[in-house]
């Protein structure tokens, strides 16, 4: 295909201008993130206060999974129980290892050891 271009048009002109524009767009986006930080902080602080007042311990994500809605709630002995009527299936958090829980029980014998 025959193509004629203006003699004095430099190829790098539009391309560098385009890249410059993109770089400016990225800078603008990052600036926006910084500029909206106070607003975000206010919202998060409000949310945090709400969490404290209500006594919530988990987020509202994965509401269908008993233990991901409340990781505090997972039945340690029930694998993959995600939904009251659901079949066992690949759950939201099966690959994430359960965080090491501090010791939840200790057996001792009266007379030999006393709980401190």
């Amino acid at each position, binding site marked *: 295909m025959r193509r004629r271009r203006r003699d004095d048009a430099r190829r790098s002109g539009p391309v560098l201008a385009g890249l410059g524009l993109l770089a400016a767009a990225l800078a603008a986006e990052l600036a926006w993130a910084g500029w909206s930080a106070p607003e975000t902080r206010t919202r998060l602080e409000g949310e945090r206060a709400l969490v404290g007042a*209500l006594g919530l311990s988990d987020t509202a994500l994965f509401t269908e999974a008993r233990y*991901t809605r409340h990781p505090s709630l997972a039945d340690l002995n029930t694998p993959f129980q995600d939904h009251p009527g659901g079949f066992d299936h690949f759950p939201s958090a099966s690959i994430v290892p359960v965080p090491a829980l501090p010791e939840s029980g200790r057996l001792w014998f009266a007379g030999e050891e006393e709980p401190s």
Partner: protein
Amino acid sequence: MTPWLRRQRALADYTLAALARRRGKNAALVAVYALVVFALASAMFFAAALRHETTQVLQDAPEITVQKILMGRQDLVPAATVEKIAGIRGVTRAEGRLWGYFYDRTNGANYTVMVPGDKAMEPPAGSVALGEGIPRARGFTWDGAPLFLSRFEGDLQKFEVVRTFTRASGLMTSDLVLMNGADFRAFFGIPEGLYTDVVARVRNPREVDTVVAKAGALMPEMRFVTRAAIQRSYQKLFSWREGLLAALIGAAVLAFVIFAAEKASGLSAEETREIGILKAVGWDTRDIIAMKLWEGALVSGGAFLIGTVAGFAHVFFFGGTLFAPVLKGWAVLYPEFDLAPQVDGVQLLSLALLTTLPYVAATLVPIWRTASADPDAVMR
């Protein structure tokens, strides 16, 4: 403009002319590359926003949650336990929490029904406060529509809605039904003196493990979950999901790697001859290498910028709709919430370097030898 800058611009002109020869292929290359960066950047921004919000917001969650385990399942906690826990040294406050899941048969969603810890936030009798997800899930068409809950066949409980939380706190409150204490006990049939679990606040975060150890010794039938453990779970969860998304775009990554490998595998006869011609007309090795650097930088830099700008916009202006299900998880009641614009500088820099450096190296490596050879040898 200094001579050096002019020289760079002239080299860039040539590079673009050379790239324009295979216009379609190079355009496809940049497009696939940008797509890969877009997906990675989206996942990165989304996960970072979730991690940030979760960490910040859970800071005031109770330090320790105590659950009673009976026959392997969670059981209701007697009030006496609350006193026992409050008596442990280091615990500033312990209170029984009343909450539970309600499975709504009409839409298959789980609601978290709860009595607020702060008495001032308890709704009056016969009314509830709802999270933003419930009106949506139930299809409420008008403000002030009451909530009807049915526990079993033939049962219908009506509650007035006094407050609906907004999406500003959606991440935490989306599925909540806040109820009056008396209403809650009546609704679930839980007698006085029993609680779902106990939450304890510990003044000094470093003491939490000690308190848990003591409490565990005191009450072996109880299970203790710390706030730190929950936060860690979330960090890991979002990171894992971020990685899952990256794996899902593996096909695009693979396509790209194939493109790049083909470039790096060596020069075609035409490219070799071209370098010979350039050397013959007076370009030295540095000029050839600078020209190739331009090629690598223009393609990878361009792809990085396009992908990152688009990814940022996609996540923070459009809610990450393309990838949200992977990152937020599956649910019947899908929480809607604003994402906190949070940019992790280190991650962004890593993405930039990962995007540009390998590609530039792949473009540069095959020409090294040709660029430094005598033009005569190259052109024959």
